[in-house]
């Protein structure tokens, strides 16, 4: 085989391998949490593992409409998750347990069903604040009121669906 032919073949094969391999490699190394309307599957994955004291880096993206992300039992501001965009957030847990995360945007009829859990293992980390995210933007009193409103709304929906 002549040299130009060999080089051409190598270039084509290398190009194909690059075009296939590079995106697959990078895609596999970028775990995303996908948000979809509850009717289409909700959070994926909907169970996340974490350890106390170790920062949990989450990359969230929406596959359909604007969603929001917040974790119950934590003083944190909810973050918006835009379609096709990636939102990054870092959480640190001081106490082990099962935390619920949920959508904070009115994303669809079953919005209130859009929940997942973060299973935090490990020992207690002493902290005057308790569990906290690295992203603390709103006063906890505001968040408590907001969480209460959200829970009341959920209860109303649950009651309505029971009645139906």
């Amino acid at each position, binding site marked *: 085989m002549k040299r130009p032919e060999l080089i051409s073949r190598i270039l084509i094969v290398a190009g194909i391998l690059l*075009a296939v391999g590079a*995106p697959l490699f990078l895609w596999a190394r970028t775990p995303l949490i996908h948000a979809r309307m509850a009717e289409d599957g909700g959070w994926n994955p909907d169970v996340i593992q974490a350890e106390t004291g170790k920062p949990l880096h989450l990359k969230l993206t929406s596959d359909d409409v604007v969603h929001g992300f917040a974790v119950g039992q934590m003083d944190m501001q909810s973050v918006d998750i835009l379609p096709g*965009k990636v939102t990054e957030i870092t959480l640190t847990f001081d106490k082990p347990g099962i935390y619920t995360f949920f959508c904070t945007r009115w994303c669809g009829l079953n919005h209130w069903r859009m929940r997942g859990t973060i299973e935090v293992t490990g020992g207690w980390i002493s902290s005057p604040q308790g569990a906290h995210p690295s992203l603390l933007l709103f006063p906890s009193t505001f968040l408590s009121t907001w969480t209460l409103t959200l829970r009341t709304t959920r209860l109303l929906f649950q009651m309505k669906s029971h009645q139906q």
Partner: protein
Amino acid sequence: MNRIELTRIPFIKNTLKSRYPQLAVFIVMLVGYIFAILAGLIGTPVGSHNFSIVFVWIAWWAILILVAVPFFGRGWCAVCPIPLPGEWLQRGAVLAPPDKRPKWLNLRVPKMFRNIWMQNISFLLLALFSSVLLTTPNITGIVLAAMLFAAIGLSAIFERRAFCRYLCPVGGFIGLYSQTAPIELRIKDKQVCVKCEGKPCYNGSDAGYGCPWDVFPGGMTKNTFCGLCMECIRTCPHDNIAINLRPFSADLAKPSTRMDEAFKAFIMLGSAIIYAGVLLGPWGSFKDAAYNVGSGAWFIYATVFLATIFIVLPGLFTLGIMTTKGRQSLKQRFMSLSTALIPLGLMFWVAFSLSFVLTNASYILAALSDPLGLGWNLFGTANAAWQPMLTTILAPAQTLALVVGLVWSARTAQKVNEAGASTIPVIVYCFVATSIMLWLLL
């Protein structure tokens, strides 16, 4: 205006004759094509942020319909990467001189398929699912992959580029509209071809392969089936092949004599009108019907789509030309006068494409920096906001395109019409179609 032979310029001639520049472009295109497939399959399902949707249906489409086809005819086919893997398989080499023994089955495509009906069908298949195809990355990825594998499979069974020549849904309309382009590949002297032994441009030689598009350049009078692969420039032992600049629509002076090509003109004209109504119009129910594939509404949409293309548009055209008398049969006049719809259809597509390309072009910047929707920012443009471009000139540009199309079609109708017969029905037909398109777009 006489033709200007571009291959007289040594740089152009040497560039076209050498395989390396074309191969380099092929490889880059192939990498991009495969990346588009992967992006469609594993990237974000949000179409406006996925490389496959943004680069195939916005960037590539804009280049194809606004630049490549009107000015370079089948210029896209000259660099399209789809045939590259199949040709390597078929020839057993990328650059080396052709082997005398065929590597695979090397069958001739059956005569009944040696036309563009299969291309008409493949285009319509995509057109019927276009609302989903144009917005859903994984469907785009699957379709792109299917085209690549179909080309490879057909290369193993049939000789030459059977996929490009007879099946490619894009190649069909590029071929039709390439007749309007101001560029052509033609022989310089017919007598040289008559006397040439072995016809290496068609059969191949040590210098290169026989025409991959199954065209004998010596008999070529139209751009329709010449893929501008430049193989004949390399194989011609008499330096008798030229690339010429010529007036726009030079091929249209020779009217169409084929029913498959006549219907292609109606398919393209009808598709542009329907797309303008469904994709750009204000009717939500039309969009829902087109998007919800398999639903009752979609079947109605598909029926209306096909009826418009195969019955309404050709039927009204036939009724129009029936009112005129001529020496040719009605069928001949139908095929011949349908040539007038080629420039009209092209300008309909230009006007339609201007609308969605200028509206959505800003997505290109974001998709360039984050092609898979994984949160990258390669060029710092990942967060570029969506911003419609050149909105102030959009309507005038579309109007201008449609008016140019109408005038161009009227001129073409006069050229292809037999002496003595009236072209008024064809011009009225084109005028009504243009008015409908203008109403839909504006």
